[in-house]
């Protein structure tokens, strides 16, 4: 009985009221994409947010639809790479990483070496590429750090690389050097010793 009631509610409320900000034609197309994404088991919130972003920015309906469709496809690729247990934030970050040039194979490797959530690792990868680090260097650096670094260390690593880039260090080198200076020192590289860095509270959120 309760299940029936829920199903009825779900059907009546099939349309997210936030989407009323879109013009009717765009809205119905977006709703269709959102519904099919939901049926495929993909998170719908990122799609709604992308449509709302377009609405606020006054983008034409065609562009909004295209963006939402593209995101749906990319979320599907991300989910194939990360597995069905990936959370919505992980999938969103994975999309950013894929669009930055990370391969689905890399995403799967990250999933294999790092305990969830993968959100920060994937996000840092995307952000590094946005700063000019070549995708393969960014991927290698994040993969090297992924097994052991805390999320806060990864965030600090990204900031450190950006600072070095602004100093004139070539981005690929900055990423490689930053990776070596982050978190517990590994034995993979000679001459670097030392224990865990002390836990540092982040300076700002």
């Amino acid at each position: 009985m309760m299940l029936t009631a829920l199903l009825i509610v779900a059907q009546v409320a099939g349309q997210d009221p936030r989407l009323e900000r879109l013009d009717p034609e765009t809205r119905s197309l977006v709703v269709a994409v959102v519904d099919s994404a939901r049926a495929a088991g993909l998170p719908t919130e990122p799609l709604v947010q992308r449509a709302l972003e377009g609405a606020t920015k006054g983008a034409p309906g065609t562009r909004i639809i295209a963006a939402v469709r593209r995101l749906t496809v990319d979320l599907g690729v991300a989910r194939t790479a990360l597995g069905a247990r990936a959370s919505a934030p992980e999938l969103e970050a994975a999309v950013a990483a894929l669009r930055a040039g990370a391969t689905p194979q890399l995403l799967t490797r990250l999933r294999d070496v790092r305990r969830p959530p993968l959100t920060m690792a994937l996000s840092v990868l995307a952000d590094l590429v946005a700063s000019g680090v070549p995708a393969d260097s960014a991927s290698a650096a994040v993969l090297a750090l992924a097994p052991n670094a805390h999320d806060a260390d990864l965030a600090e690593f990204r900031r450190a690389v950006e600072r070095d880039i602004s100093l004139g260090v070539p981005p690929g080198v900055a990423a490689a050097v930053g990776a070596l200076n982050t978190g517990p020192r590994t034995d993979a590289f000679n001459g670097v010793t030392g224990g865990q860095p002390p836990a540092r509270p982040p300076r700002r959120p």
Partner: protein
Amino acid sequence: MGIGLVEPSDSELVRRVRTGDIGAYGALVARYRDRLGRYAVHMIGDRQDAEEALQDSFVRAYRSLERCNDPARFGAWLYGILVNRCRTTGARAARRRRMFVHDIGALNGAAHPDQTDRVEWSDAVDRALARLAPEYREAFLLKHVDDLEYEQIAAVTGAGISALKMRVKRAREQLQKFLREAEHV
């Protein structure tokens, strides 16, 4: 000739800050940020510590602005606050150190030789600077990098002029020595 856009002087900005115009303080921060930041980075040797010291110094300077006796020399007064703040920075246990060049080479075999040379020299300079005694490093940076006059350095550090000249001389000698050693490695 025409109406040029003249930037307000430090005294003018300080005067405005004193009447409550925080935006004017923003202009002072922007004016001095990179120059003072450069000193802090070279003095402390750790980027994050240096930025923290810099931020603190700007905040302190604002809060004690009434003690700046000569607004026209706001810059020198600010240096004094920063120099003192850099002295009290403790080393972080896991200091970010620039990598030795052979490690960089191993990591990135395709690195362009010019880039490697530049990073190598910059590393060597950083290491040599870090080996100087703090008071030598301080005097050397203020004199040769920040271009302060000995009178200003004396005011900012509290040391006598002849002591400062000696420190700068020692710093130069030691830097030569360390870097010649590095060349022969």
